[in-house]
């Protein structure tokens, strides 16, 4: 039973346009939601987080939106750059367990 789903395995956008990556979850007990970015042959690196008590968090070109009633979050990248091409993992977590649950990942390709 997958608690976290990233239903789009891949996404291709043009440089300068907006990239929107989606994530759905089932467990209403998650306290926070992280996004990780992974380049080939490297480990994932932390990108941005949002607390369950917020509905938006912004950091430069990256914004994460949380809709708790729909159990849905999204990562917006504006404007997209070729260097953003990577795999993005959604990773909700709980303060009780201290563990992250990773989605399947979405491969983003930003074309010049």
């Amino acid at each position, binding site marked *: 039973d997958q608690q976290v789903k*990233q239903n789009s*395995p891949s996404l291709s956008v043009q440089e300068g346009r907006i990239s929107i990556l989606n994530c759905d979850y089932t467990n209403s007990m998650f*306290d*926070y939601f*992280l996004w990780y970015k*992974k380049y080939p*042959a*490297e*480990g*994932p*690196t*932390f990108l941005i*987080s949002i*607390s369950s008590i917020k509905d938006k968090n912004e950091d430069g070109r990256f914004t994460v939106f949380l809709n708790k009633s729909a159990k849905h979050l999204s990562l917006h990248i504006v404007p997209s750059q070729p260097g953003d091409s990577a795999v993005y*993992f959604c990773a909700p*977590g709980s*303060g009780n367990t*201290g*563990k*992250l649950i*990773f*989605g*399947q*990942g979405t491969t983003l390709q930003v074309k010049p």
Partner: protein
Amino acid sequence: DVKVTQSSRYLVKRTGEKVFLECVQDMDHENMFWYRQDPGLGLRLIYFSYDVKMKEKGDIPEGYSVSREKKERFSLILESASTNQTSMYLCASRYRDRRFYGYTFGSGTRLTVV
């Protein structure tokens, strides 16, 4: 910054071999994790450890074991390597931000079993 170091970037092993993957972190973190990454399946948790000599099975422990004799080192062992264990293996160490628990990952080990 926390550094998590995996000893090998690429490994090629034969079926049936015993394989050791090593991971070291330099921040005295108690919690460490081993994942494998496969296309379309994301990151799947193999084992984790919450202290020296303490370990728990993750979602896919079959065919693997772990060792944590020192706090900084967490080893993943493939008892008898099989071709379906060809994968990218990622080690992580957990830290506490004021708002959440996050993981720092190593660079990964790409293991090919032939």
